[in-house]
């Protein structure tokens, strides 16, 4: 499995490198580059979520909240206090990590529906805070005048530059995630997902790992949020609401939860579907989204990537609940 992953990774690097040049030369799809920038940011969120959902077997309906914590931290520190964006980003990530730790410790003792509801409730509370703390966040009318990014004096202004920056970060996180998976940590995560009691009996500190992976997901989402802030230079709480958390879950599910490639595939596909191909539907977008979600959950719970995994002996159980008793 590892070798194929390496090949796919190389192919992916090539595709990513080449894509903007291609797109900009074909007028009809030249705006796809911008879409891919967003897809890249969302991929950061979904990679973390994929590890949490697909491998550790937990669910989080709060990723948009962490996305927002990173975004608003960067926004507030740079716009209100004049910080350097590259210093603000780690602060945002650390804030998200701290919050994830505080919330994760009580929440991850829960399972199934209770965990889903707890993360859902937490996410909505954070959204309400974004809306209410107008002095800090600008409230529903939003926050403006956020500076852009520059590296060592070079301003990152063009779409191409942003594209390469964002996807560069995605590739780094992807690599990191693959290393995690094909290792002691990855085996422990998969063990927790399949037979949590047995994993614990074999010396795996299951709770600690769940919290760590939850924090990891929060950090990747926060980094994505910081990048989002400086790209869009405008923040509004409506970008960090429950519907977004659900979208992230759908991206991971539709692509395939037990596969990092699946998470990427699902994210890119649904970003395009949401922003581009559904524009036709306009008002129907919500309904279509719900329908896609339903169809995926009912008929393709392993996600699209499972279509590539027909070979017997390939791993993949239907996502199973934590085992009942020891």
């Amino acid at each position, binding site marked *: 499995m590892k070798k194929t992953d390496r090949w796919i990774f190389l192919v992916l690097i090539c595709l990513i490198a080449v894509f903007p040049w291609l797109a900009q030369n074909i007028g009809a799809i030249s705006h796809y580059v911008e879409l891919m920038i967003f897809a890249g940011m969302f991929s950061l969120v979904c990679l973390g979520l994929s590890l949490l959902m697909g491998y550790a077997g937990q669910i989080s309906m709060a990723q948009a909240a962490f996305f927002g914590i990173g975004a608003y931290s960067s926004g507030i520190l740079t716009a209100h206090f004049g910080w350097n964006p590259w210093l603000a980003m780690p602060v945002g990530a650390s804030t998200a990590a701290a919050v994830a730790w505080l919330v994760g410790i009580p929440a991850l003792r829960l399972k199934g529906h209770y965990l889903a509801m707890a993360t859902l409730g937490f996410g909505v509370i954070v959204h309400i805070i974004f809306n209410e703390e107008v002095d800090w966040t600008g409230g529903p009318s939003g926050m403006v005048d956020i500076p852009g990014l520059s590296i060592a004096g070079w301003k990152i202004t063009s779409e191409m530059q942003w594209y390469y920056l964002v996807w560069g970060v995605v590739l780094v996180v992807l690599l990191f995630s693959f290393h995690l998976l094909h290792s002691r940590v990855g085996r422990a995560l998969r063990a927790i997902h399949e037979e949590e009691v047995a994993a614990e009996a074999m010396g795996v500190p299951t709770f600690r790992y769940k919290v760590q992976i939850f924090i990891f997901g929060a950090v990747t989402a926060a980094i994505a949020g910081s990048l989002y802030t400086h790209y869009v230079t405008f923040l509004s709480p409506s970008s960090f609401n429950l519907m977004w958390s659900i979208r992230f879950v759908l991206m991971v599910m539709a692509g395939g939860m037990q596969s990092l490639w699946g998470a990427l595939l699902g994210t890119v596909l649904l970003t395009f579907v949401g922003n581009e191909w559904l524009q036709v539907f306009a008002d129907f977008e919500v309904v279509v989204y719900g329908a896609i979600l339903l169809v995926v959950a009912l008929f393709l719970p392993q996600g699209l990537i499972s279509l590539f995994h027909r070979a017997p002996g390939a*791993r993949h159980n239907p996502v199973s609940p934590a085992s009942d008793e020891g």
Partner: protein
Amino acid sequence: MPGSEKKSILPILELRDVRMNFGGVAALKGILHGVPEGIIQAVIGPNGAGKTTLFHCISGLLRPTSGSILFQGQEISGFVPHRIARLGISRTFQHVALFKSMTVLENVMLGRHPRTRSGFWATGFRLPGMRREERRIRESAESYLELVGLKEISHLQAGTLPLGKQKILEIARALATEPRLLLLDEPAGGLNMRETEVLGDLIQRICKYGTTVVLVEHDMNLVMDISDQILVLHYGEFLASGSPRQIKDNPAVIEAYLGES
């Protein structure tokens, strides 16, 4: 695997008045017993006697309502399971809790978890120390598979194995944690005679290498064959304890089993 260290005269496992209540039901009513180091200890009794409950208490899945459990002289009741595994107790499960989507080799590699240490960051950045450790994990797991005779199928998905091999695999995984005490919960359940023989042979080899084995079992032939000591439970209470010969002829034991049908 623990080598042939000097055996202590202290019992490796001591149960002192262990009680376990579930709401109104008393599953264990004050178990008092010591397991000497280096033997094969069987725990038998009719269904509902509390044998698996006892295992859950020892391995940390359940916290005894009262009483204490001492492992190598140290109080462990109430410890979290993964800490108990780190201290040197490992187990198998009645319904074979293998990681079915992982390969045979990966299952055993997971067993190396408490004896290894690469963390999040070392792993994510794939530091040299982590890579060395990963190689050692693989080699060690392969040697355990060789010990139990599953080396040829190490690449197969664990869920596809027949039951007999699954049970052996689960034991290999437990062994990989380097336990001083191994708890086997009905290892012969669902096995035919040939498979049971292979199993008995393996258990005796494990014991010879220095690991104390406690096994819950219904297969009386196996029990009589390989056990050094037998503890009999009945409705959560101590009924009898002794060598296989003593237990076989113990009238109270016979009554308990015959009385059940």
